[in-house]
């Protein structure tokens, strides 16, 4: 049941070299730099997003994800969810308004998977450059892959069952799709808080808190193919694709940013309504579930993480 969490709002990614990373996410992925702060962080926005930023880059000596933030309906909802998290037993870290430029207060917690998440309700809106009144189809000054939005993250970690319980029971996410072993252990779970096939996904892994990828939405399969062209033109590290996922049925390509953080751009994919039963894949079909055409995992999918 929905609890007022609306959508993925932002992800803060650690990078080894800020300039290289900014060039990657702007010139290649096609995000726009909108701000920098006194900590040296760079704020980026995809063109269809109305909020000021969705990706924050921070230079550090260990690549990976600092946290992913979800936007809630309003401040009252944020208060209610903060109380529900505390009641559930989560330790809360209250991040004051303005710690991220033009973002309201954030309620941060660590999921059983070992990842940091936060909820917020207020962020300055810049809108889109085509505006809200008789808007044109798209802005004509987009670069690279022309990513439309930050869509979701896939995270690797421990305690999938407890993580699902938290996201479902406290935050109002639904389980859309899962991978189960013969003895009934869930080893992958794809959760949504919207009509999208996934807003957050987890895969079982012995190390807590690992980052598999941040994903950005493209409009068409042709855009995914052209993303692959751009990766070759720029000699960027490709993981796999273009191909199709079994899970979600999205059309995808995986690649790496200059610090080894995996990115995905994808299009298509299934939709979800709250009366949909979860879709189940057997673990022995994991290859086909992840890469529908190859029908087997490349080893990197399971081992290459930041």
């Amino acid at each position, binding site marked *: 049941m929905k609890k007022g969490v609306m959508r993925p709002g932002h992800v803060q990614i650690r990078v*080894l*070299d800020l300039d290289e990373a900014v060039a990657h996410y702007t010139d290649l992925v096609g995000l726009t730099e909108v701000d920098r702060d006194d900590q040296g962080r760079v704020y980026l926005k995809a063109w269809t997003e109305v909020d000021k930023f969705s990706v924050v880059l921070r230079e550090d*000596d*260990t*690549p*990976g994800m600092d946290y992913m933030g979800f936007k809630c309906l309003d401040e009252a909802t944020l208060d209610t969810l903060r109380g529900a998290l505390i009641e559930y037993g989560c330790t809360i870290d209250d991040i004051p308004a303005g710690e991220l430029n033009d973002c309201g207060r954030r309620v941060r917690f660590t999921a059983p998977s070992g990842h940091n998440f936060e909820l917020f309700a207020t962020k300055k809106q810049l809108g889109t450059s085509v505006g809200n009144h008789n808007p044109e189809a798209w802005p004509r000054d987009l670069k690279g892959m022309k990513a439309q939005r930050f869509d979701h993250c896939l995270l690797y970690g421990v305690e999938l069952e407890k993580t699902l319980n938290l996201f479902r029971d406290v935050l109002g996410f639904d389980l859309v799709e899962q991978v189960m072993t013969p003895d009934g252990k869930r080893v992958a779970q794809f959760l949504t808080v919207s009509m999208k096939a996934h807003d957050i996904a987890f895969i079982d*892994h*012995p*190390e807590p808190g690992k980052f598999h990828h941040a994903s950005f939405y493209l409009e068409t399969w042709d855009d995914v193919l052209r993303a692959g062209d751009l990766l070759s033109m720029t000699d960027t*590290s490709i*993981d796999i694709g273009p191909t199709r996922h079994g899970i979600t049925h999205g059309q995808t390509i995986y690649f*790496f*940013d*200059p*610090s*080894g*953080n*995996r990115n995905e751009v994808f299009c298509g994919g299934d939709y979800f309504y709250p009366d949909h039963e979860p879709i189940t894949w057997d673990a022995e079909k994991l290859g086909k579930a992840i890469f529908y055409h190859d029908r087997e995992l490349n080893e*990197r999918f399971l*081992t*290459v*993480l*930041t």
Partner: protein
Amino acid sequence: MQIMTTEFCGPFQPFRIQVTNRDQEFLCPAGSNLLKAMERKNSGCISVGCRGGGCGLCKIRVVQGEFHSKRMSKAHISDDDLEQGVVLACRISPASDLVIESDQYQPPVAG
């Protein structure tokens, strides 16, 4: 073994990279990272991961020779590692012929 931080200014010639644990060798031009040169030869003697210094899969130990190094993830390469010549092949380029051992990455185990 010495980590050089200044730009290499020598003649533009490929260096010979010996991979002792695999009994293989390949050539790597100055300015190219080791992993990229290995992949061009398609020899598979170093494991390939993210190619960006993040994941640790291409961890090697440089037994002999000099190289330039870019920043790599502290989660995989500590200061002690660096002193011992333990580095990520995707983040170093040779400044001399090198002797290396690949397969230094240890995957995480369930705790």
